[in-house]
């Protein structure tokens, strides 16, 4: 079996309201999956459930053959699920390099004692992390900005740094929450290339939320459509764009007139 992630009938209620109900999704190793749906459909809630920010009210989540509901966010991150955030959440007052180093800290062999007393082993392990982080920046074309305060980076670079930081945790699964939000078409184009590239280079499985249909349809192999916390359709891009339910709830009738469907 090559399932990386599977949810079994998960439901999340806030108060009485179900933000997500009876959700069954799965991801196989190496897949690139999209998740679309109107605002408030529960897409980000799904991400929060998968990363342990919320605990499901009902149902099970298994990740890498392990039941992960109830685990804390940092534990899930350590098992190998990394994410980016819709509203960029960088450590603004740290530099670009330091942001990535935080994510690389899991590889440190030395404990708190070592950090406080600056032991030899800590120095070596820290310089290893430093080296890895610099490589990661190189991979994401961010080396030139290593010493700039993250909050001062240009918007597009901030989005890229979010991905670099997530990659530095050495994940198996990468969850991207609207990675192209606020980018212009040219930047989106570059981002698509980058997503494909990191999937290859780091042998990742990727799940992404995105509103830009061109991007989603362009790179995703399979798409889940969410509405009111439920999966209303799933399938490959061409199936989705023809699905009447999806057109009614999300895409709209004249969708194909305005947004080119063909892959770029």
């Amino acid at each position, binding site marked *: 079996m090559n399932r990386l992630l599977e949810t079994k009938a998960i439901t999340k209620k806030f108060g009485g309201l179900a933000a997500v109900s009876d959700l069954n999704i799965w991801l196989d190793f190496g897949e690139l999956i999209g998740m679309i749906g109107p605002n408030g459909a529960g897409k980000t809630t799904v991400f929060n459930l998968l990363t342990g920010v919320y605990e499901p009210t009902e149902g099970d989540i298994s990740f890498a053959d392990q039941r992960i509901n109830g685990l804390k*966010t940092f534990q899930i991150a350590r098992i190998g699920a990394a994410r980016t955030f819709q509203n960029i*959440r960088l450590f603004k007052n*740290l530099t670009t390099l330091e942001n990535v*180093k*935080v994510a690389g*800290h*899991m590889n440190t062999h030395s404990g708190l004692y070592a950090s406080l007393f*600056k032991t*030899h082993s800590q120095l070596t392990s820290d310089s290893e992390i430093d080296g890895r982080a610099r490589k990661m920046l190189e991979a994401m074309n961010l080396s030139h900005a290593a010493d700039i305060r993250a909050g001062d980076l240009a918007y597009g670079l901030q989005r890229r740094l979010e991905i670099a930081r997530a990659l530095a945790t050495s994940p198996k699964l990468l969850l991207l929450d609207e990675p192209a939000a606020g980018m212009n078409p040219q930047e989106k184009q570059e981002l698509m290339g980058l997503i494909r590239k990191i999937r290859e280079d780091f042998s990742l499985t990727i799940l992404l939320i995105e509103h830009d249909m061109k991007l989603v349809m362009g790179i995703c192999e399979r798409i889940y459509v969410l509405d009111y916390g439920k999966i209303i359709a799933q399938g490959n891009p061409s199936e989705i764009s023809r699905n009447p339910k999806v057109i009614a709830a999300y895409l709209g009738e004249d969708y194909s007139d305005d947004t080119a469907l063909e892959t770029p």
Partner: protein
Amino acid sequence: MIGKSMRFWIVRFLTIVGILLGMFFLSKIITDNLDSYYYQILIQCGIFITLAVSLNLINGITGQFSIGHAGFYAVGAYVGASWTLLWQPRFLHSAPFLQMGTTFGDAINLVIALVLGVLAAAMAGFVVGLPSLRLRGDYLAIVTLGFGEVIRIVVLNIDEVGGARGLSGIPTLVSTGGMAVFWVFLLVIAVVVLSKNLLQSVRGLTWLAVREDEIAADAMGVNTTKVKVTAFVIGSAFAGAAGVLYAHFFTGISPDVFDMNTSIVITTMVVLGGTGSVTGAILAATLLTSLPEMLRFLKDYRMVIYSLSLIIMMLTRPQGLFGTKEIGWKSFHRRRRTSAGGSAAA
């Protein structure tokens, strides 16, 4: 050939011995030449630097809004004083080497008092750190403040430690032979060096990450719970040590020494110095400890001027004296483009 690691430890050992010797002679010189009034101010400065830098670990670096630091200071002071005044005599019979009066006897008692005070304060820090897992920002602040008050009131109600009158006649373990400066500034060096080491390590970055964005830090695999509680434990342990030294230098403690105002003064030092900046905390602690003394000639107007300078400082330089910058020896300097340093709180 000596291995790399071996050489590292030899250098480390020699540095420490060097510092200890240097400090020892320096403190002798200072004690012999300084007027006792300024001597007291110097000790006060040292104690408040320790308090401010240790609170900076919790408040500035980890971003936990704690404003009840005097509580831990009190725990250290009372537990330490209880050892020398109340518990030590009981052990004296079976362990005669605990006899005070000689340099060795004083030192051993002080070390025991320090260990007990630090442990107790660290434990208190652990207990107070726990709510920080659920509470954020102002809510946490008021709980820490409340905790400080509860400690004070509890102490007030324990007759064994003198209640409202406090404890007096604590043996002056540190003042014989000019050792006060030595001990106090040893503590200052310890807290500053540890803070600096932490800030320069990757682990320290994870602490800063908790301050910057807890949710993101969590998602990067940082055990934020552990970081926050650890910050509380280490920060309060140092405050406890400062308390022990205070008790044994000023030889008298009472609950008012550790009231809300003290907590507030320590918090002010951290903010005034620039939240997160160790150098800033040191400078602000020195300034705020000596300022009231320097203003003494103003008599009644002293505290009015003091409060006014506080307000005007905040209105004209809200990021504190240093922002998040550090000054000092080269390695201390974190080359980070600073912004408004205040984003620590909230």
